């Protein structure tokens, strides 16, 4: 009898009041630590000096005006050009590769796929020196082309993996029907398959874009000329040697992050965390 009562009160679907309170407190603490820092910085971007020195509640757009006067717009343009081009190239190549992997059997298929997957865990920093030497001789330092090629190569492993996952769910009978109707394989890929897996394609491309948008290491090594720098480098330019212009840093952070949030939130459910784990660097 006692056991049954205890069992019932302890049932995991029917918590005791104390458990409820403990859970609530823990949850609110966790929520606070997770969310507050981001909100604090968002608000700080509208305060003079980031709100660090003054406790005033003055609302101002001056930080934003200031960063654009300091040339932040240029960094946005650079990032957009490089990231959009790299995303288009990497997604197109990945669609082709993923299609071959999902539709055909060929020699070394498994080995090749494993090799591409391995790219997801490669220590990028080790590639910096040799790539720098090659880029220097080919005039690819401080060049859009160099950065676009780099970012294309470094988003492909993730994109191929994602797209193969989507493509195997598209029935092969679709391809065969189109081919009987006289379409070429090439047409099948772009006119039949891509529209069918459009949500997956968009999610993959978006994530590849976000990886480029926030990439710091390659940009740091390969872009030294101010007018070619990308957004992440521009953001850290506001950290001076001695003092930090917090107002500008906050505003630049918001400008960097807002597109990330807007693009990431709609696709996050499509990109399962387990998959992301392989792509996050």
């Amino acid at each position, binding site marked *: 009898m006692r056991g049954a009562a205890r069992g019932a009160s302890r049932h995991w679907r029917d918590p005791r009041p104390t458990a*409820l309170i403990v859970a*609530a407190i823990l949850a*609110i603490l966790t*929520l606070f630590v*997770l969310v507050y820092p981001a909100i604090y*910085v968002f608000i700080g971007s509208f305060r003079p000096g980031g709100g660090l020195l003054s406790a005033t509640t003055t609302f101002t757009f001056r930080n934003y005006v200031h960063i654009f006067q300091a040339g932040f717009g240029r960094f946005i343009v650079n990032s957009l050009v490089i990231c959009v081009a790299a995303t288009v190239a990497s997604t197109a190549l990945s669609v082709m590769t993923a299609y071959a992997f999902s539709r055909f059997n060929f020699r070394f298929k498994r080995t090749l796929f494993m090799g591409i997957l391995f790219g997801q*865990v490669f220590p990028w*920093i080790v590639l910096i*020196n040799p790539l720098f030497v090659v880029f220097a001789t080919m005039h690819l330092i401080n060049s859009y082309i160099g950065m676009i090629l780099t970012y294309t190569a470094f988003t492909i492993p993730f994109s191929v993996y994602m797209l193969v996952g989507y493509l195997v769910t598209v029935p092969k009978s679709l391809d065969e029907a189109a081919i009987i109707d006289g379409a070429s394989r090439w047409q099948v890929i772009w006119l039949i398959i891509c529209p069918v897996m459009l949500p997956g394609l968009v999610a993959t491309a978006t994530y590849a874009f976000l990886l480029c948008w926030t990439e710091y290491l390659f940009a740091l090594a390969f872009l030294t000329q101010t007018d070619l720098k990308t957004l992440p480098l521009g953001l850290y330019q506001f950290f001076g040697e001695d003092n930090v212009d917090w107002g500008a840093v906050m505003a630049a952070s918001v400008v960097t992050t807002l597109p990330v949030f807007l693009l990431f939130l709609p696709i996050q459910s499509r990109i399962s965390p387990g998959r992301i784990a392989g792509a996050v660097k």
Partner: protein
Amino acid sequence: MRDRLFITTMLLPTVVLLLLFYGYPIFDNLRISFTDLSLLGMRRGGNWVGLANYRELFHSGGFGHILFNTFVWLTATSVILRLLMGLGIALLLHTSALKQLRLAALARFALLIPWATPPIVAVVIWRFLLERNGAVNGALEALGIIDHPIAFLADMRTVWPSIVAIMLWNTVPLIALSLLSSLQTVPDEYYEAAELDGATNWQMFRFVTLPFLMPAILVLGLMSVFWSFNNFVYVWLATGAGPGTYTNVLATEVYLKAFVDFKLGYSSAIGMVMALIMGAFGIVYLRLVARQQLEETL
């Protein structure tokens, strides 16, 4: 035959690009590590010095400290805490209490905010909060825990815990969400059966929940190891490997030696050490994760 030509055309551009950006550089890095190539004299090229760079590396006093930082702080501490906190949050979000309070959905959304925040911005946020006159010092002073503000990222006693805290804030949500989705696959009947047998909460966790989560924990832990060990941005942007070189790790040392000291040869030798260590982990990765990914997708 036509198929074969088609497959080749589809694969060739990707394979060539990946060979150029992963395959060739890793071998070239090995070659550079045997030379005294300098960033300032690249046109001239470097002279072959054999194993001199490696000898210098292993005899330099600072290398042990760098390895310690990389293994103990950057990797072990962050990975273990990340898994524990991720598991804790996942379990918390899975409790019926949270569902009853209608907090679970809100909390899930809250997890997305640090996850979606790019690492470069996460560091900015915490550098701001950890400033001398920032919010963290303000809160600690108001609570009476400290008398004087702490320079968290400049004080040797606090700098590593601070860097790890930044990493955790940014990355725990991903682990928590992954484990939460695994938790939701545990069939209710298992708990019901355990309860009939009189299992305590701890026993249910230990013998039902944990075995179910173990594969996910292993994979996430392994990915986490790669990701922390290779990471450059957190340490570099938070402290620039400082104060002095106190928080220097392998990744920042590769960059410092190449682009601050201009010693490309020496830097490449450090890179090779990194690649070798990761290669060992890579074998585990291939056996555990890549094979599983392969089975799942192909």
